């Protein structure tokens, strides 16, 4: 009896699979990101952004009558698994990939896309090494650590008036990349950090690192890390009596920061990838997005969702429309892309390395939300 049920289930599953492959006309859009593990709050946003864009495009009749089907794979926020995840997308014969979260993961999985000749638009990784002259198939829409870390270093000294800056950073590619550029930028301005301490992504207790920072008596603390470590550091720093103001880059640009460190995160100044107050279209999109994804098991995370949405809808889809799904033509089309995107002031375009050139946004945490930074 049990056996028969099992066979029944397999047959059903098999016919579903057949039905899916029967619509081979579909354009397959691959999404890879950490939908579990430390990157969850970012990966979920990426998935939601893709879902929203694809739903809208399909509702409007698809691309020249062809629907887009999403293939989402979870890399568990782990570089090794992200290679397997990307390989799955290649085996699934997706037409292009828009996604990727975490510099270490993207540095690992972009190799697979490069080898397979698969156009890959990265939305959630900032290490400068991702877009060099060597990557042929990989593009990136969010700006790199070099832009962000330099900007926040400048803002810390010139706009926030910090004189004794300490740095705590994740020992991964994101954290180290940011630290190097931040420290170099400070030196250019004529300042040396009073302390620089690393931590491991999975650390929960930061007393050891923060005790050292407290000894250095900083007035500003740069945190180059992600959720959940960054809010934990903020909470524990305040418990230890560190009064320094927090600054950081895109790793902190996640609404979960305020959930996990409601009091401690107040006043933090950071660079971000999206803010709804930049222009009315951004605000309209954010309202629509939050409405669509509120009340689910996972709360909306607009920051990276906005990039995923924009990359799919305004860059990938127009290119498929004009160049079809031939991978080489698609790659050339993305490389030539130039246009405007909501929440990005001015024109944006890809440079020779596949990096989207654009102006960045500074925000400050106030009243439990990201506010446009209005400091001096």
């Amino acid at each position: 009896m049990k056996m028969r049920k099992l066979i029944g289930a397999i047959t059903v599953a098999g016919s579903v699979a057949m039905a899916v492959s029967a619509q081979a006309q579909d354009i397959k859009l691959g999404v890879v990101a950490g939908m579990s593990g430390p990157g969850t709050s970012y990966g979920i946003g990426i998935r939601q952004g893709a879902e929203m864009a694809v739903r809208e495009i399909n509702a409007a009749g698809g691309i020249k009558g062809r629907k887009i089907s999403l293939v989402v794979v979870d890399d568990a926020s782990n570089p090794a698994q992200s290679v397997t995840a990307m390989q799955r997308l290649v085996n699934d014969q997706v037409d292009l990939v828009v996604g990727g979260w975490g510099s270490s993961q993207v540095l690992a999985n972009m190799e697979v896309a490069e080898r397979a000749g698969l156009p890959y638009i990265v939305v959630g990784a900032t290490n400068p090494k991702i877009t060099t002259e060597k990557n042929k198939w990989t593009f990136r829409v969010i700006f790199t650590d070099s832009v962000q870390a330099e900007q926040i270093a400048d803002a810390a000294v010139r706009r926030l008036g910090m004189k004794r800056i300490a740095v705590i950073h994740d020992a991964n590619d994101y954290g180290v990349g940011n630290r190097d550029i931040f420290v170099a930028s400070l030196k250019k301005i004529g300042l040396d950090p009073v302390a620089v301490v690393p931590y491991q992504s999975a650390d929960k207790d930061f007393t050891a690192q923060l005790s050292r920072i407290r000894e250095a008596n900083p007035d500003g603390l740069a945190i180059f890390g992600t959720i959940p470590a960054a809010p934990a550091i903020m909470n524990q720093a305040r418990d230890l009596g560190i009064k320094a103001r927090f600054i950081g880059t895109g790793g902190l640009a996640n609404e979960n920061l305020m959930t996990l460190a409601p009091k401690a995160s107040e006043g933090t100044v950071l660079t971000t990838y999206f803010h709804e107050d930049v222009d009315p279209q951004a605000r309209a999109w954010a309202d629509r997005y939050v409405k669509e994804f509120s009340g689910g098991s996972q709360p909306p995370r607009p920051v990276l969702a906005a990039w995923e949405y924009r990359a799919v809808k305004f860059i990938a889809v127009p290119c498929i429309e004009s160049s079809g799904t031939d991978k080489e033509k698609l790659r050339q089309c993305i490389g030539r892309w130039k246009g405007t995107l909501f929440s990005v002031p001015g024109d944006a375009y890809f440079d020779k390395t596949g990096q989207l050139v654009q102006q960045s946004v500074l925000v400050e945490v106030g009243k439990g939300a990201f506010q446009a930074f209005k400091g001096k």
Partner: protein
Amino acid sequence: MFDQLFIGGLATGCVYAVVGLGFTLVYRTLRMVNFAQGHVFMAGAFLGLVIAERVHLPALPLLFVVGAVAFALGMVLERLVFRRLYHNHEVFIVGSIGLGIVLMNGVRVFFPEPVPFPKVFGSEVVQIGAARFQEGYLWVVLSTLVLVVLLHAMFTYTRTGRALRAVAADAEIAATVGVDVKRAIALTFGLSFAVAAIAGVLIGPLYFVSFDMGDMVGLKAFSAAVFGGINSIPGTILGGLVIGVLENLAGGYISSAYKDLVAFVILLVMLIWRPTGLLGRETPVKV
């Protein structure tokens, strides 16, 4: 700085010690290592979270309820899973690793992201010398003390406790004098689950709780148990405290990059130099 590192390390050390006790309890009885222990600690933290979010319990009753539920869960899982596995050490190890993965991913379905834990132990900051820390740290240290005293009293003065010790010493002989060995083993699992879950609730408010929080703590607790002697309760406590304090000091004075290394270097050195651990005794091999 020393005060801060020392007290912080002591608190984490207490958690390693209590979770490590779970390893020790099971090992003493069955000569087997339950690698699900770290994930039981994680599940306990989430159990506490789910209860604390629904009913506003003061700290002590919350610890008690979580301990009781985890105890029952341990007994049930022993009956359903472990009893079928402990006839063979290899089977048991793989089975317990599997159970850990099931626990972790079961929690992950409901809580994919790290979540804050209600501040059930207060959020005041206490200052001792130059060290500042949350009240919660005191709770961790005091609760560990109380747990150890309670366990000691149970093993020494109660009938059940003596039965457990008899089974630990020699299950066959204990059975011939009328001890219900199966029940004793089930109770052991109940106890090991209860202590790990209580540790989970104690640590919850200090950090966030996340489905993967048991990985590292499980490994460190295991190192603590091996360091102190996996069949010795005082040894495990000592092991936990030593590892907790040393790793924090190494993280503060040398480099935080080497923090995790400390526990495992200690484990390696101990396994080479004294495989029975600091206070452990060699188990005589029966012929």
